């Protein structure tokens, strides 16, 4: 069903916070749009939803939503969110984080929140760079990527956060570029509904801090880059297994997108409740 942007705005946004801090061509606003859309589809109660974020451009998102929110310290969103969820398992907890926040400085919390399968919906917005500080190399910056701290090109291997989450047994793992609106909305819905740790990685353009160094300052070209550099997971796997040499060579610069994992696993809160029932006096 089509939703009117104005209706979503009225219903969910904290109007005093506008305009946003986001630059022209930034994809973070799209992620907010998709999240609100998904929440609206689920008819979620904002009074029972807590947003948690760390530091960085994407971590500013909770400020724009009219709900309880913790805008925490750099990298620690998952630690704070774990406290909220463990103390009040009945509340929905949605985390907005970035690639630097969530997988760089916050990498350890990422591992352990997934390991204990705390029931969080984590929307990790990956723009390949530290945008708020002006575009430095991130754990996700592609090899060769030009940033202010890799002026001659990045030499480090980028981290695939979805592969890590999948390996750790996250209940739900998906990756979409912001250039595809409907799939992310569906994945965010599935992530919120999922009992357990849900990761939705959103590939999001940062023309100002990353694009300008990488010949992607032009918004149209930048957004087109995202369309050209992703391949649906099913197709990606097909080429990996059965593809021709040409197809495989073409895959080298591309990222798989889609739903990578959707499984059932006991959550921390379920296990805690079972323990409480077992040891009660």
């Amino acid at each position, binding site marked *: 069903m089509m939703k009117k942007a104005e209706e979503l705005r009225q219903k969910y946004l*904290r109007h*005093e*916070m506008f305009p946003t801090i986001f630059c022209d061509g930034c994809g973070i606003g799209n992620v907010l749009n998709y999240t609100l859309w998904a929440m609206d589809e689920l008819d979620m109660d*904002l*009074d*029972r939803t*807590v947003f*948690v974020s760390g530091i960085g451009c994407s971590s500013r998102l*909770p*400020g724009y939503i*009219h*709900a*309880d*929110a*913790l*805008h*925490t*310290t750099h990298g*620690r969103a*998952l*630690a*704070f*969110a*774990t*406290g*909220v*969820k*463990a*103390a*009040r398992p*009945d*509340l929905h907890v949605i985390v907005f984080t970035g690639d630097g926040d969530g997988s760089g400085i916050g990498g*350890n*919390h990422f*591992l*352990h929140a997934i390991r204990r399968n705390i029931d969080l919906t984590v929307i990790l917005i990956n723009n390949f760079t530290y945008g708020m500080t002006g575009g430095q190399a991130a754990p996700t910056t592609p090899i060769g990527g030009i940033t202010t701290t890799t002026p001659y090109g990045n030499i480090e291997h980028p981290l695939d956060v979805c592969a890590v989450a999948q390996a750790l047994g996250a209940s739900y793992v998906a990756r979409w570029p912001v250039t595809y609106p409907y799939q992310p909305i569906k994945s965010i819905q599935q992530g919120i509904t999922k009992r357990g740790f849900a990761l939705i990685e959103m590939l999001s353009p940062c023309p100002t801090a990353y694009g300008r160094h990488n010949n992607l300052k032009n918004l149209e070209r930048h957004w087109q880059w995202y369309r050209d550099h992703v391949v649906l997971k099913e197709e990606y796997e097909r080429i990996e297994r059965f593809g021709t040499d040409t197809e495989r060579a073409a895959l080298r610069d591309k990222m798989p997108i889609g739903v990578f994992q959707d499984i059932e696993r006991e959550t*921390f809160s379920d296990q*805690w409740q079972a*323990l*409480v029932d077992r*040891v*009660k*006096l």
Partner: protein
Amino acid sequence: MTPDRSLIRKALGPKVQFIHGDDACAYGAALAGCTFFAGYPITPATEVAETMAQILPRIGGCYIQMEDEIASMGAIIGASWTGAKAMTSTSGPGFSLMQENLGYAIMTETPCVVVNVQRSGPSTGQPTLGAYGDMMQARWGTHGDHEIIMLCPSSVQEALELTITSFNLAEKFRTPVLLFLDGELGHMRERVVIPEDDEFEIVDRVITSQSPHDYQAFQTNGSLVPPFAPFGTGYRTYVTGLTHNEQGLPRTTSPQIHQHLVQRLVAKIITNQAEIIAYEELYADDCDLAVITYGLTAGACHDAVAEARRRGIRAGMLRLITIWPFADEVVARWASRVRAILVPEMNLGQMVHPIREAVAGRCVVSFLPKIGGELHLPAEITAALETLAITAAR
């Protein structure tokens, strides 16, 4: 989530027990109404977490072992925003890791309690031995202008009681409160009497009586402490470590808003310091030499003062229970009455600095440091007093 009082009693067991300082902190927390603990193992504080892990599931609370001390501090702040009384415990290395989130708790006015069972540093130092080397880190460890509340017990019984006080102060002033022991007190066993519920006060943070429509999360309406609205109750509070206005929204470039906020955070502690500062005095009106002490060292000081008096030296003792905010007026009062003040510390000189500042030249200040994990012997302190009795002229 308020635990059933009878359940707490049942979980703690007999009224009189032979327990150590770490256990006493856990017991005090349970009695104060703590329902959330997040921590990470570290010698010599691990037993606080172990005992909380035993108690909390049985009283309707939640225990979670986090991946590090940064996460532990974050988790208790998150839990506190749901309305839970929350605590973590650690030792020096872990306390170092907590500094950034400790500042976040100060800035966001999040009640919580941090127990630090100190060991020798720097770095890994002497993990199993006691020290008081984190006194200044407690005061100045997190960046930016701030005040902090910190208490130091001198016995296992007092560790239990001051844990309750720590929660009460945290709730009342909406700020993190530090409770500092050392490895010796943490692992030392003493007879402890668990107080009855009518023998101590329990303070809960003030919950707003305004409607969500009128409520502004950091508006104090003349008081210095804003009323609280727990997450999940419809108040839709935005909490940020950025400089924020009374509504809680970031305003990071206004000098006025920053001054207003940070000066209020400082004032809520400084203005109320008479209520926060606790100390114990011995022979205050009949001495011309004084020992100023805190923590476990107070035991040796107590014996040393008694022995000195037997030898004809008119010694007295001031024991600081509240370390921060610093009892500078009390120290100044002592300084104007005595010839000299002896400061024995299990470090190379930390509290002696604010003491000297408060004394401001009114009398001699003599410092008696000891590091390496050994406690001061009463005889060492008596000897130092005897020397002072001769050398310190009025």
